């Protein structure tokens, strides 16, 4: 059976090569000088800044709403729960173009709620708010699923203990549940952040592409690559570096546990 470990190693080597080669290619083709120049380019800066702002906003909404929702799904049984979970996971399997269509059909100007949104004075289409809506839609299942799994894995007696020690369920949620589930929550947040930062199709269809308002970094890359491949390359490299930095800082703060390391 000696072939088995060899096959495992070969698979890993293949996967690593396939996944890292494109990323490495980005950096090989741009010098650090190019990267800095790219940062100096106002279009690139605007795009990056917009991406970060919108992703942060989307993530804030996702965590604020998704955490209690995930907790409910993880700890209570109720009729229709399986359906609720499937519905929440749905955007995961929607191709971004379909997500764009879905958003247009629901909250777009001609969509189901379009009239009501317009009447309320809210502008989503062709506006930054629309980008945040698109990012929230596509990225939330990544967080909610991980959060659910994290809460489920927390030993229920910990909450019982907290209550017998005089701490109410609500405060126990904050003092025990969240800290204990934290590695899973952070992992979910990192996944959602990655998805939101890279979102392209749904954003383009739903919110359009305009510098400083709706042109996120991926859209800017798409806009320039045809005629200025080097700029696109540089901006891509910056985006990879930013994503990598976020991933790395998450790992450092929460130890290897969070993103795939063995539990300490």
């Amino acid at each position, binding site marked *: 059976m000696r072939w088995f470990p060899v096959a495992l190693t070969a698979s890993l080597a293949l996967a690593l090569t396939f996944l890292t080669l494109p990323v490495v290619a980005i950096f090989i083709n741009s010098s650090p000088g190019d990267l800095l120049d790219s940062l100096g380019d106002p279009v690139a800066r605007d795009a990056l800044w917009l991406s970060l702002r919108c992703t942060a906003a989307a993530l804030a909404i996702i965590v604020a709403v998704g955490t209690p929702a995930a907790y409910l799904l993880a700890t209570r049984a109720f009729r229709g729960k399986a359906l609720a979970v499937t519905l929440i996971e749905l955007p995961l399997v929607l191709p971004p173009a379909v997500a764009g269509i879905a958003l*247009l059909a629901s909250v*777009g*100007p*001609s969509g189901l709620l*379009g009239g009501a949104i317009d009447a309320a004075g809210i502008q989503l*289409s*062709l506006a930054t708010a629309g980008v945040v809506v698109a990012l929230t839609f596509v990225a939330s299942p990544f967080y909610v699923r991980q959060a659910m799994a994290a809460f489920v894995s927390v030993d229920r007696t910990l909450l019982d203990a907290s209550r017998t020690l005089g701490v109410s369920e609500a405060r126990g949620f904050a003092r025990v549940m969240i800290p204990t589930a934290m590695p899973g929550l952070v992992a979910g947040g990192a996944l959602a952040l990655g998805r939101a930062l890279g979102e392209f199709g749904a954003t*383009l*269809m739903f919110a*359009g*592409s*305009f*510098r400083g*308002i*709706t*042109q996120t970094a991926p859209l800017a890359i*798409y*806009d*320039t*690559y*045809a*005629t200025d*491949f080097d700029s696109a390359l540089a901006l891509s490299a910056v985006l990879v570096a930013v994503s990598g930095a976020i991933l790395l800082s998450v790992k450092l703060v929460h130890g290897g546990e969070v993103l795939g390391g063995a539990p300490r």
Partner: protein
Amino acid sequence: MRRAGVVIAALIALAGCGGDDSSSSSSSSSSKNSPVIVSAASSMTEALTSCSPRDKLQFAGSDELAAQIEQGVKPDVYAAANTKLPDQLYSEGKLSKPVKFATNTFVLAVPKDSKITSIDDLTAKGVKIAIGSETVPIGSYTRDTLAKLPPAQSRAILANVRSNEPDVKGIVGKLTQGAADAGFVYVTDVNATNGRLKAIELPAEVEPQVTYEAGVVKGAKHPTEGQDYVDALSSGACADALEKAGFGPAP
């Protein structure tokens, strides 16, 4: 293990079968043995799909398609919505000498029930305009046209732009969805919406000359068939389809 092997073999066989349309009874302009791979500008989507259904057609902004060819992708035919991009590829030796095969009319498009009647209405505050990005032909035609207007008007209109779309389909989408109030596209795009949008012609003095060019990509797999296809764009089933869609004849 064995069952998996059988499944894998079946999948490979299916994949192998997949793409050969060797029917000789088609009425398309490509009455040849193998399908032609064509990269064409988005504005020709409906026309070319209907006249050459058996060929492998890819539609996107002409600039994106040109970039692919620059990077070494080799479709058989490249058909663009301007002359600049094919000529550039030709000068780099990547395309055969391009042939002008059609023209199009650059128009202002609005939803069918819009109150906008002319380009002057676009300067009003709050009008949301969608145009093409700088590098896609529709976008550069738009900017050229606006540059021909009095500076104040041009500035006001540009100030109302809310999206720079990568291709005409994106602009049309914003209009049909009600996201934008007006957009600059080709008359063929308006025709393709079957009445949902209406086209407003622009004054002759600002109307750009929109000429479509096509060529055979150097190093393509089917150069002869590719040339046939390019020829048929000027006279043949596809030429007819283009004319039906609203394209003008070659200049």
